[in-house]
């Protein structure tokens, strides 16, 4: 397991923001308890220009909170926040890395307070370059900004973290976008200094290492890795580091829930701490699952056929015959792909009917110079968002129906142990949250079983500024339960289906049928 830098500004100096890369040879698809894959969701949509205020979960769901409707609370709305403080050289970073390594959960974000150094004035920069600036004073760090960032993350928002450059002694124009964090570790000498920031934390750790050990570590680090001379390093220590430590840092130990003497070498303390965090996370994960369960109980009893936002293809002879072929184990992969492509063309066409059309502005004239009466044109852009990989089964038909369509992707996987759906990766077109663009998002998934992946995807879209009314879910088959859950959490999305099960089993097809319960479409379609 390796620690890698997220940004390519390696020259910048100190550690900025880290993630644990998946261990080599393991893909996300095979993540299991044996294959540690802890990764943060790094949003590639950094320049989306989103209006963060308008896109907080509350403002979006606010439209949907009538008395009997349930609100979906995604797991990243309640991240588990850990603060790690301690003197310079005490081993904070090692302890934080140890936590990440041992926890082995996706979306663990490590935020170093180094990112929040205040930009320096030109004069201050001069003193910084001659090692005479006090970086160890609490005023050198913008803790208010750090508080705002962590608060925003705790609310489940997409949040931008500044990047500080030690070579320029200034904040860079780069930013790191974090979204969907499950565990956030804040590490820095002043991690427990700012009261409001401390109040956001679920676990406060102080790494207490003897001052002489701190000095020894700091000296070897400064001299061996940062190219400083002994004299300069000692001067820094005696002028800034030690006085500040005595004045400001040591007292924050009082804030800590847990004091770890000797840092990362203290296996017993770290082991106990990890066990505690794991217990808390398990509880959080259970609550999420329980919540998804609960959506079930709040299902409304309106008959499926009377739900206007649910569109199921009429069961014509062709559709029935295609469904039969797709269910038959004797069907060859060749036939399966062909018939799935056929039915997905019909589904996509059905979904495109839900776009907004308007009479053409200019008169439309035929080559024989006759004006066209019912001239209509589409006034919205359709954007596809596929849930990897089952949603990708629609690609062939999608490209043939709408060749220039923009396509975003989401990777959501269920945890092998708990079954909790987890968001791994987001790739969305830049304009997906642009309120001025009239659009519909076709959210594609071949099957809805529990509905959890789709529910999570909708929340991601809402968090990125998409309006609920603009989401159309395109799906081949769905359980009644999953469908009702989605509509219970997000009543204004539309769902286009070819096939739906039935909870009471009175109908020919019911939720318990194998073809509704099992994710088989992408397995057959891709042959793997």
């Amino acid at each position, binding site marked *: 397991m390796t620690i890698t830098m997220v940004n390519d500004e390696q020259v910048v100096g100190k550690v900025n923001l880290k993630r644990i890369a998946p261990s080599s040879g393991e893909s996300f698809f095979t993540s299991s308890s044996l294959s540690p894959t802890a990764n943060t969701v790094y949003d590639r949509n950094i320049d989306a220009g989103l209006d963060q205020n308008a896109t907080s979960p509350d403002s979006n769901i606010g439209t949907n909170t009538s008395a009997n409707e349930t609100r979906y609370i995604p797991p990243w709305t309640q991240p588990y926040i850990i603060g790690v403080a301690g003197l310079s050289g005490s081993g904070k970073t090692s302890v934080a890395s140890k936590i990440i390594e041992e926890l082995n959960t996706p979306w663990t974000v490590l935020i170093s307070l180094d990112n929040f150094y205040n930009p320096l004035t030109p004069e201050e920069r001069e003193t910084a370059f001659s090692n005479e600036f006090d970086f160890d004073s609490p005023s050198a760090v913008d803790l208010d900004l750090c508080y705002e960032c962590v608060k925003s993350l705790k609310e489940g928002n997409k949040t931008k973290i500044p990047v500080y450059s030690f070579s320029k002694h200034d904040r860079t124009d780069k930013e790191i976008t974090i979204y969907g964090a499950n565990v956030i570790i804040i590490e820095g000498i002043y991690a427990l200094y700012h009261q409001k920031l401390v109040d956001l934390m679920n676990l406060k750790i102080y790494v207490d290492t003897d001052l002489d050990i701190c000095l020894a570590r700091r000296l070897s680090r400064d001299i061996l890795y940062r190219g400083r001379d002994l004299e300069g390093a000692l001067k820094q220590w005696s002028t800034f580091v030690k006085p500040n430590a005595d004045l400001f840092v040591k007292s924050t130990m009082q804030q800590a829930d847990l004091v770890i003497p000797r840092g990362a070498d203290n296996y017993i303390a770290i082991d106990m701490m990890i066990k505690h965090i794991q217990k808390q996370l398990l509880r959080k994960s259970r609550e999420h699952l329980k919540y998804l369960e609960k959506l079930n109980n709040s299902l409304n009893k309106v008959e499926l056929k009377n739900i206007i936002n649910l569109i199921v293809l009429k069961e014509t002879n*062709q559709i029935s015959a295609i469904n039969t072929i797709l269910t038959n184990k004797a069907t060859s992969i060749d036939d399966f792909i062909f018939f799935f492509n056929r039915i997905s063309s019909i589904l996509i066409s059905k979904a495109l*009917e839900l776009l907004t059309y308007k009479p053409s502005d200019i008169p439309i004239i035929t080559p*024989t*110079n*006759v004006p*066209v009466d*019912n*001239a209509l*044109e589409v006034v919205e852009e359709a954007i596809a968002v596929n849930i990897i990989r089952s949603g990708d089964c629609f690609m062939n038909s999608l490209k043939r129906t709408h*060749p220039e369509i923009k396509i975003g992707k989401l990777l959501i996987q269920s945890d092998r142990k708990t079954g909790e759906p987890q968001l791994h990766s987001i790739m969305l077109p830049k304009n997906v949250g642009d309120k001025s663009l009239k659009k519909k998002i076709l959210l594609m998934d071949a099957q809805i079983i529990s509905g959890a992946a789709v529910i999570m995807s909708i929340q991601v879209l809402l968090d990125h500024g998409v309006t609920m009314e603009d989401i159309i879910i395109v799906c081949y088959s769905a359980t009644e339960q999953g469908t009702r859950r989605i509509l219970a959490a997000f009543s204004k999305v539309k769902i286009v289906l070819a096939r739906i099960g039935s909870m009471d089993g009175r109908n020919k097809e019911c939720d318990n049928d194998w073809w509704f319960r099992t994710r088989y479409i992408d397995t057959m379609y891709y042959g793997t």
Partner: protein
Amino acid sequence: MSAESPKNVILLPQTNQLLSLYTIIRNKETQRSDFVFYSDRIIRLLVEEGLNQLPVEPKTVSTPTGEVFEGVKFLGKICGVSIIRAGESMEQGLRDCCRSVRLGKILIQRDEETALPKLYYEKLPEDIASRYVFLLDPMLATGGSAIMATEVLLSRGVKPERIFFLNLISNPEGISNYHKKFPDIKIVTGAVDRGLNESKHIVTGLGDFGDRYYCI
């Protein structure tokens, strides 16, 4: 466009999407690449609607886990017969749904002297009498060529109720002419336009489909 469909006329649902597709192919400003692409989309919808008319029979299959599924399967063999040249534009749409479907061709042109349609060429599957036939011609104007093509099919032993005439644009006069001769043949169309002008072109129409699809 007529609001109600007469008997044995299957009109595609006039959704906004469909109307916007028609707007594109009717517009004289539309370039050929767009004309071809959007015509093909309508053709695909027509073919799917035509296929929906075919009967199925019950079939029980077993799923990969050994459960039993009471389904249905396609019944009978089909073939497509296109009227050269414009009708050939619809062959690929049929092939997209039925991969190895047999395709027959009929060439009918208007005789310069008599102004009546004349049969120049036909090439049809040997066993066409035992198949469902999709007759393909994008424009139903007076119905002259389609009537002649249908007579060829009937002379080869195809039963009228097994013929489906697929076109993109029709008109009441053409439908009535055709159904006077063959009341039992279903016409599957995407648009029923106002009527014909003095030179027997469909109004509103879209100009010469074959020219726009293949040449202009």
